[in-house]
């Protein structure tokens, strides 16, 4: 069974540009999460999809971030326009259910560097 995949693995862009990150969850996992780790800090939650619906987007930092999950399969996270403080590693995770004991399976992350 394929795990969670993310694309690209690395992205270097200039301030003001747009970047789109993609996450493909494990097949059949209705729940998809985005997290990010800014350099030297803890991993922070961004948002949670249940199928194509946003269940919780309380962690989204501002309106420069737009997440979508069309058809309830893969998800994209667009940053437009990117700022220096957006640099970090963006992780995606998926799980079959949102239950507390459920394991979240993580992707390898996308390393974003904004210059």
């Amino acid at each position, binding site marked *: 069974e394929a795990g969670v995949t993310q694309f690209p693995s690395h992205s270097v862009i200039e301030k003001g540009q747009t970047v789109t990150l993609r996450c493909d969850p494990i097949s059949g996992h209705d729940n998809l999460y985005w*997290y990010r780790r800014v350099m030297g800090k803890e991993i922070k939650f961004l948002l949670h999809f249940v199928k194509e619906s946003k269940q919780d987007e309380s962690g989204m930092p501002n309106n420069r971030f737009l997440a979508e999950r069309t058809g309830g399969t893969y998800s994209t996270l667009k940053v437009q326009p990117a700022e220096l403080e957006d640099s970090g590693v963006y*992780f995606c995770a998926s799980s079959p*259910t949102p239950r507390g004991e459920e394991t979240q399976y993580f992707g390898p992350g996308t390393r974003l560097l904004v210059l």
Partner: protein
Amino acid sequence: AQTVTQSQPEMSVQEAETVTLSCTYDTSESDYYLFWYKQPPSRQMILVIRQEAYKQQNATENRFSVNFQKAAKSFSLKISDSQLGDAAMYFCAYRTGGTSYGKLTFGQGTILTVHP
């Protein structure tokens, strides 16, 4: 809001010896889960061990065990017989129980180095 604190940015251990990674958390909830995740260099994060707050018995997974002190809000990870493959960043994480909340709250992480 819940918080998770890992006070050890880095730890090291000799191969075959035992090491303990510390984690404390703060919550007013009674139903929750605690996790340790491991992220090896350039690889994805995987679950090491999980503890249900309602269980008094400490979770164990092979060489990995936890010391869960609910009153003290402490959740340390013990790695016995350390192996080179245990070298990784370890994250402690908290999650509310039930079905309403799916997000994990992470600590800052501890880098574990294993010396041969």
